[in-house]
């Protein structure tokens, strides 16, 4: 394998992540904020045991719940909704936490970018192991130039994680 061939996958993927940097600090939109306030910044039992709307992508929201607790030490017990009414009981300190978070959307979007890296890695390996390196390279070229993948690689929803897990599943299924 020549040196150029060895680095081609990285050469293909780098422009994608340069473009992703444009989106990573974009303001949160309605569905993301809904997921955050209803299913992420809540006690973990609410994430796992309540399904008030299909916005609850349970595994994804549970992972984010733990992410917020461990990395940012956000006390999700302080954020809770009284039933289905739009009543929030939070202290001034909690309000400051939320606005800090929404002011720095990249803190929430970075895990999504990591999921997309894993997707690209496994898709490349599927192409390389079961076909050839050219198929692997074409596949990841096509993936990083697909508009929905670009947008969902920064969205705080469960769709990107679904793509990652599906790609990993294909890899391990074809291995057998």
């Amino acid at each position, binding site marked *: 394998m020549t040196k150029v061939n060895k680095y081609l996958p990285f050469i293909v993927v780098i422009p994608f992540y340069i473009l992703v940097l444009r989106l990573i600090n974009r303001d949160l939109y309605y569905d993301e904020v809904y997921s955050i306030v209803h299913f992420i910044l809540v006690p973990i039992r609410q994430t796992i045991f309540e399904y008030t709307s299909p916005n609850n992508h349970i595994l994804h929201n549970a992972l984010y719940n733990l992410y917020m607790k461990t990395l940012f030490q956000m006390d999700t017990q302080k954020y809770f909704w009284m039933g289905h009414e739009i009543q929030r009981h939070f202290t001034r300190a909690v309000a400051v936490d939320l606005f800090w978070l929404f002011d720095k959307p990249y803190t929430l979007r970075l895990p999504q970018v990591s999921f997309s890296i894993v997707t690209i890695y496994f*898709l490349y390996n599927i192409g390389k192991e*079961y*076909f050839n390196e050219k198929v692997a390279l074409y596949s990841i070229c*096509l993936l990083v130039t697909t*508009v929905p993948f670009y947008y969902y690689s920064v969205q705080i929803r469960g*769709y990107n994680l679904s793509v990652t*897990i*599906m790609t990993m599943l294909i890899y391990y299924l074809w291995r*057998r």
Partner: protein
Amino acid sequence: MIIILTTLLIYTIPSNLIFVLVLFTFFRNKSILIGCTLALILYIPLIGGMLNNPQLQNDFFRTTTLTKTFPEVLNAFISYRWLLLPIVAWGLFKARRTHGRPLLVCSVMLTVPFVLFFIQGSMAYGRIFLPQLPFFCLLMGIGLDGSLNLWR
């Protein structure tokens, strides 16, 4: 690993169960069934909320899934790369003997879930079909390789 991944996939978004079931028709792997069962067990506490949710009501044989959602999703996957389609089609035609089974898996995974959602009738937004994207990219990749054949 397959058990864990199947469980996690369905536990992320319940509609992923349809994709897993279609995959099972090709890969008759007990691990997939075990993963589905585990995921369904994890969903037991949520069944009440899911059944009572108006957004999850079924309207069997919902035609918009095939007439509106299917073209929209394919259009999004193609992402303005229309000029590639004839090249890919020629490559897939050439590759049908050497890569018959992968082509079949990818083609079925891209089409059959829409039919199943049509029959099941839930409100299928385009974004829930995003897990089909790796199959689309592989299919196009095989087609491009078959057609371009640059380094052979």
